[in-house]
C-alpha cells in the first residue's frame, strides 16, 4: 500500500516535471555575463520572437561545474561566458555541441569562433596599455614585451594574476613566443610593478591617475565606464590617462571575446540557435559598444563615438581557443614569477 502510493506520487512528480520542461517556447540560459549587461538584449529578443528566456547568471567556472554535474538532465540550452578560455574548457569537458548556420558564420570572423562551431564570440574586449598623459609620451611605449624592460621599474600597475584577463594575456604570449620567453617576461614585469597587485582594472587606472604609477594595463570597457561615470573623481581619473595600443607593428593588441556555446543536451536547440544568431546581428552588436564600450565581433558594424575616438587598432588574430589551451601553464608561470 505504502509502496503503491509512493510510486504514484513519484509518477505525479515526474509528469509535472516533464510537462514544465516541454512547456511553451523558451530558451534556458546560463550566463557569466552580468544580468545588467545582457538582460536588455534578451528582452529585445523576447519581444521580437515571443520566446521566453530563463536566466541564471554566475561565475563562469561555477556555471560550467553546474552544467557538468547536471549532465544530460541539465536544463541549460546555452552557456555565455566573458572569455574564450572558459568556452574552450566547456568544450573540452564535453558539455557543448557544434552548431553551424549561415548567419553565425557570416556574423563571426574565423579567429573569434571555435573552428567546428562549438562556440562563437559575441563581443570583443581589448586589453591595451593606459599611460598618464603628463608623465609618459606614447613614443616611449611599444609592446607588452617592452613592459618587462628595466626602464619601467616601479612604474606599472596591473591587477592580480588570479584574474582571468591576465591569465589570458599570458596564455596568448605563450601561444606566440613559448613558455620560456613568457616566463622571463612575467618575471621582468613583476620587477617593474609600482605596487603589489590589488583591486580591479578600474583601480589600476585610478592609481595611475593619482600618481602611484605611470602606466596601467586594463580592459577598455572599464575605461569607457569611468569616462561616462556619474562619479566625478572617477571621471577625472580617466581623463588623465590615454590608451596606447601595443604590438601594432607585430601581432597586434591582445583581445578576448565574450561568447556563447550551445550545450550538449540542449532541449530547445532551435530557439537557442535563434538567440545566438540574434546576438550577432548588427543591431545587437552595436548595442555592446554603446552600453558596455566593447567592440563588435562582426565586421562592418558601426562603432560608437567613444570607440571611434580611441582609434582603430590592429588586434591579435590568434585563434582564441589557444587561450584556453595555455591557461593553466600561464597560471604556473605567474606563480613562479611571483606575480601575486
Amino acid at each position, binding site marked *: 500500500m505504502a509502496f503503491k502510493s509512493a510510486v504514484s506520487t513519484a509518477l505525479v512528480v515526474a509528469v509535472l516535471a516533464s510537462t514544465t520542461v516541454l512547456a511553451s517556447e523558451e530558451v534556458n540560459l546560463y550566463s557569466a555575463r*552580468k544580468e545588467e549587461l545582457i538582460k536588455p538584449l534578451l528582452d529585445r529578443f523576447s519581444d521580437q520572437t515571443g520566446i521566453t528566456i530563463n536566466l541564471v547568471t554566475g*561565475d563562469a567556472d*561555477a556555471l560550467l561545474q553546474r552544467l557538468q*554535474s547536471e549532465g544530460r*538532465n541539465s536544463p541549460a540550452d546555452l552557456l555565455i561566458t566573458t572569455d574564450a578560455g572558459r568556452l574552450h574548457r566547456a568544450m573540452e569537458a564535453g558539455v557543448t555541441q557544434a552548431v553551424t548556420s549561415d548567419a553565425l558564420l557570416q556574423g563571426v570572423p574565423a579567429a573569434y569562433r571555435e573552428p567546428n562551431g562549438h562556440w562563437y564570440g559575441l563581443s570583443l574586449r581589448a586589453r591595451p596599455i593606459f599611460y598618464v598623459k603628463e608623465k609618459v609620451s606614447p613614443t616611449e611605449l611599444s609592446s607588452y614585451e617592452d613592459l618587462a624592460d628595466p626602464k619601467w621599474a616601479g612604474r606599472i600597475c596591473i591587477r592580480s594574476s588570479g584574474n582571468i584577463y591576465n591569465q589570458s594575456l599570458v596564455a596568448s604570449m605563450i601561444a606566440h613566443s613559448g613558455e620560456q620567453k613568457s616566463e622571463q617576461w612575467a618575471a621582468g614585469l613583476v620587477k617593474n610593478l609600482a605596487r603589489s597587485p*590589488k583591486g580591479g582594472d*578600474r583601480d589600476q587606472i585610478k592609481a595611475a591617475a*593619482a600618481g602611484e604609477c605611470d602606466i596601467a594595463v586594463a580592459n577598455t570597457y572599464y575605461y569607457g565606464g569611468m569616462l561616462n561615470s*556619474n562619479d566625478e*573623481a572617477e571621471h577625472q581619473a580617466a581623463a588623465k590617462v590615454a590608451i596606447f595600443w601595443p604590438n601594432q607593428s607585430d601581432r597586434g593588441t591582445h583581445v578576448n571575446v565574450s561568447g556563447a556555446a550551445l550545450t550538449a543536451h540542449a532541449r530547445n536547440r532551435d530557439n537557442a540557435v535563434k538567440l545566438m544568431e540574434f546576438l550577432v546581428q548588427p543591431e545587437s552588436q552595436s548595442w555592446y559598444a554603446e552600453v558596455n564600450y566593447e567592440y563588435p565581433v562582426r565586421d562592418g558594424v558601426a562603432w560608437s563615438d567613444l570607440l571611434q575616438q580611441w582609434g582603430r587598432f590592429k588586434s591579435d588574430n590568434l585563434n582564441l581557443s589557444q587561450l584556453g589551451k595555455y591557461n593553466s601553464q600561464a597560471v604556473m608561470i605567474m606563480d613562479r614569477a611571483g606575480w601575486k
Partner: protein
Amino acid sequence: MEVAVKPESAAIRKHRPGFWQAGVLLSALLLALPVIVVFSFVFVPAGEVWRHLVDTVLADYLSNSLLLVVGVAIGVLLLGIPTAWVTTVYEFPGRRLFEWALLLPLAIPAYIIAYTYTGLLDFSGPVQMLLRSVFGWTAGEYAFPEVRSLGGAVLMLSLVLYPYVYMMSRASFLSQSLSMLEAGRVLGAGPWRVFFKLTLPLARPAVVTGVSLALMETLADYGTVQYFGIATFTTGIFRTWFGLNDSAAAAQLAALLMSFVFVLILLEQHSRRRLRFFQTSGRYRHLQRHRLYGYRKWSVVLLCLLPLTFGFLIPAGQLLVWALSIAEETLDQRFFLLVGHTLMLAVTAALITLTLALFLGYGRRLFPSRRVNFAVRLSAMGYAIPGTVIAVGVMLPFAWLDNRIDDAMREFFGLSTGLMFSGTLFILLFAYAVRFLAVSVQSVESGLARVTPNMDDAARSLGYSPGRVLMKVHLPIMRGALFSALLLVFVDVLKELPATLILRPFNFNTLAVRAYELASDERLADSSVAALTIVAVGVIPVILLSRAVSRSGVRDATPT
C-alpha cells in the same frame, strides 16, 4: 553559584531509544555530505600540481591564512570583550543605545565593508585626496597605510565579526550571578581582579564560541581577501581549481583547510572537556550598574563609539551617499521582487537550520557518545568552508542522485523526472543548512547548557519521555537562545553570496547577488542600493537579537 559537574547523569544514560540516535547520526551524516565529498578527492593523484604549489605559493597560503586568523582573533577579542563588559556593569551616557548598536556591524557583509573602505582610503579616494590638497603633498612624499593589505583585511574582518564575541560574552556576563562577584569583592579583589580571575574564566566557553564563529567565517571569506590581493587558502583553492583547472588538487587543499579547522575544534573541546558550567543558583539578583563619572565616563563612551563608528556608521554612511545618487533608477518593481526573494529564503533557511540544530544538539546531549559527538561536529564544519566549495559539494551528490532517479524512471516508466533536487530551491536551502548549521548548533548548545542535568533527571523521574522533556522543560528555558539562532542564520543568509550564486534556479536573484554583480563589475556606486538594503533589512533582526540577549539575563532571575 557555578559548579562543575560531570556531563552525564544516570537518568540520561538509561534511556537510549535507537531510532533517535540513528536519526541524529543519519541527519548529521547527510549534512556532512559536502565535507565527505571534498575528502573523497584526497586519494585522487595530483602530484605534479602539488609539487608546483609547494614550490611556489603554498607557503604564502599557509602563512597568510594563519596571520589572518591570529589577527582577527586578537581583533575580535579586543573589540568584543571590553565593550560587552562595560555595557554590562557600568552606567554611562548612551549605554542603552550601545547595547544594541554594537551589534550592527553584523549586518554588513565583509566584502562590502572592504569595498567601501577601499573607496574611502585608497590612494585616489577622498581622504588621501584631501590630505594631498591640504598639505600639498604628492605621490611618494608621504606614508599612508595601505587598506588593501593583510593588516587591512584583519581590520575589515574584525570590524564586522567582533559582534559574535560581543554578543556571546555579554550574554555570559549577564547570566553570571552577582553574588559571586560580590564574594570576590568581599574577599578583597579589586574590579580588575574580579574580571580577570572570575568573570572571564567563567565566560570562557561563551568567548571561545564567539571567537570560533568569527574565525570560521574568516577562513571561509573569499570576497575580501580576493579584492585585497592576499593569497590565502581560500583564494588558493579557487586558483588551483579554476586557474590550474585541477579540481582534485583544489579539493585536497580544501580538505587540508578542513582538517585544520577540525583539529582546532577538537583541541578546544579537549581543553574544556573536564568542566561544564551550569548555573545552579536560584538566588540571582539583577545586576546594579556602577555609574561612571568624569574622564572614565567619556573613555568608556569612546570605547563603545569606536567599533560602532568604524564597523557601521562609516561604511553604511558611504553606502548611503552612493545610494542617494542613484536610488531613482534602481528602485523599481524588479528590486522589490529581489527583496521578497531574499526574505523568503532567509526565513525558510533559518527555520530549517534551527530545527536541524535542535535535533542534533539535543541528540548529542541525550547520547553523548563519541560517535554522535563526532558526527555532529563534522556536520557543523560547514561554517569554515568557503560557500563555493559547499555549493559544489552539495551539487555533485544531488545531481548524481537526480540523474540516477531519472535513468530509473526512464527505464521503467518511460518518463523523465529531470533534476528534482538539484534544479530547485531545495538544494539551495540544503546548502544554507550545511553552511550555517554551526551558528545554530552553537546557540542551541549554549541554550542547552542553561538546563542543568538535574532538571532532566527530575523531569524524567516524573515519567516524561525525552521528547516531552524537550517540549516542557528545555524549550521554555532556551527560548532566548533559539531566537538568537534564528536571527543569526537569518542575517547570515541575507549576506550569503557564493552558494546562492551557483545553486539558485532560473530567474531568481537575491540582494546579495545583485550587489555582487554590480560591485564585481567595479560599479560600486551602482551596487550600493542593494548593499544598503541588505544592511537595512539585517539591522532589524540585529536589534531584536540584542533585546533577546539583554532579556536573557533577566529571565534567569525568575526562579524556575
